């Protein structure tokens, strides 16, 4: 247990502990309010809709909140020093080398994807996808109040993305990853000499198609197989459309918006799928080409 305490009290990890607590409390609180609104048939927000003067009502809240934050900040800064390690030394790589905590989700993705996906394509898609949300969510309900039943799909999708794929991967990267980026329980001492024999295989090899031939050149059959799997995965977009194209929702979404929603959704779910394949079945790549691997 000592090791948990060591991890938690590391000055730079305190905000992450705070983040986890905040996220849990706020998620509980938001769903509490949403389910209450859904259940009672009227909106709590609408009950508080009478207009009041900003001075003093809002200014007072802002002042008190500022005071509260400043007091916490000053106490925090008096009690805990920001870390300052030894001088920078480009020849001495610490193990593990961790990115700043808010990028640890992306660093964790490196286990499952090559850097061009985990470090470039995925972050870009996260940013673009977030920006696209208001334009692809055509549900007019649930604007300006807490609700769950009126927008189940969007809330579940966002919560999976934010709570599981972002916050919990930060938690994983901070508290569960040790030297060599191996998994350690938080209460386990970090063994810097740990070596794990990795017997990762590519997906095609599970089906008896070798990625490389005896002379180490790429096996065309494996490339065809890998491409088919990936195209097959994304062809779910078309399959679902064929099945549901006459539903009101798909018609209202329109062709372009539907494709964007479906592409972003499948790309997001590709991460947990690859995590399961990698951790559960030791699958390394789906597709290996001379230029890139997926």
């Amino acid at each position, binding site marked *: 247990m000592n090791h948990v305490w060591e991890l938690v009290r590391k000055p730079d990890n305190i905000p992450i502990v705070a983040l986890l607590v905040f996220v849990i409390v706020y998620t509980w609180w938001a769903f509490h309010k949403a389910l209450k609104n859904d259940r009672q048939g009227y909106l709590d927000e609408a009950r508080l809709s009478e207009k009041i003067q900003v001075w003093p009502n809002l200014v007072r809240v802002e002042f008190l909140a500022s005071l509260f934050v400043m007091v916490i900040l000053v106490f925090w800064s008096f009690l805990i020093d920001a870390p300052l390690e030894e001088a920078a030394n480009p020849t001495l790589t*610490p193990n593990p080398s961790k990115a700043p905590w808010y990028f640890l989700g992306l660093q964790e993705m490196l286990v499952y994807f090559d850097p061009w996906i985990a470090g470039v394509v995925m972050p870009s898609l996260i940013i673009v996808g977030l920006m696209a949300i208001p334009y692809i969510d055509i549900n007019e309900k649930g604007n300006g109040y807490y609700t769950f039943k009126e927008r189940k799909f969007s809330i579940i999708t966002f919560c999976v993305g934010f709570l599981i794929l972002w916050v919990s991967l930060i938690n994983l990267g901070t508290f569960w990853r040790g030297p060599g980026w191996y998994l350690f329980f938080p209460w386990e001492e970090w063994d810097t000499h740990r070596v794990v024999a990795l017997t990762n295989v590519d997906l095609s090899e599970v089906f008896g198609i070798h990625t490389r031939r005896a002379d180490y050149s790429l096996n065309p059959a494996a490339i065809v197989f890998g491409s088919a799997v990936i195209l097959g995965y994304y062809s779910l977009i078309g399959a679902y459309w064929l099945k549901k194209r006459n539903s009101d929702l798909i018609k209202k979404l329109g062709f372009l918006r539907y494709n964007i929603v479906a592409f972003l959704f499948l790309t997001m779910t590709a991460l947990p799928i690859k995590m399961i394949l990698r951790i559960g079945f030791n699958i390394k790549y789906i597709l290996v080409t001379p230029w890139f691997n997926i």
Partner: protein
Amino acid sequence: MLKIREKLQQTEVWKSIFRHNYQDTNRNRALQIVDNVFLHLHPVRIPRHATNIGYTWGMGGITFLLFIVLTVTGVILMFYYRPAAEYAYEDMKYLMNDVAFGPLIRNMHRWSAHAMVITVMLHMFRVFLTGSYKAPRQFNWVVGVLLLVLTLLLSFTGYLLPWDQLAIWAVTVGTNMARATPFLGHQGPFGPQLGMRIDNDVRFVLLGGTQVGPPTLLRFYVGHCIFLPLIASIFMAVHFWRIRKDGGISGPVSNDRE
């Protein structure tokens, strides 16, 4: 005493500074907001749920407060810090050991920075859960996403400045990703085919070298202290302006317009 105060309030100087008295009337309450350059960001009247922390979580406002704290402490830190590899770490040691209140200022800067990343995320979470990005606030959500990215970049560039082991290796891990940029990185898909080498790809541009070194420190310093805060301030101005222009704080449609 009362007489002196009354006299004082009659003087030209006093009247030129304070445009109205402090009687508790609705008119004065409105003037208090409208006549004040800092407070006039607010509307004069708002729906009651806008003051309810259970609804707003207050995270947007706290983020702005932290940005101000970071600006003030950051400027103070700039007096003690030189962004050159041979001085940077020594300046940090000096700051932490010899400067009066140096550790307090630096701690406040670092903890506010961490806190700001958290509050920005929570602000986004709240705005999503209340559906506040929906019409007519779609564009302000986009601006908000840009501000989130800017916050992360500000934090990331600041991470390098202490120039200790933690700093350069965290930034090394982070910027190594740029090598793998498709087309633009020397290890990315189709990068080598387009002539990308370690000394001319997008990571080289970012770092000013083939590894995190003194030019990187200067680049990140200028980005951290001038370029990014400036851009963030501009987007913040747009963000706040658009809250007003898009009908104030979100709420159930019935009281959206008034």
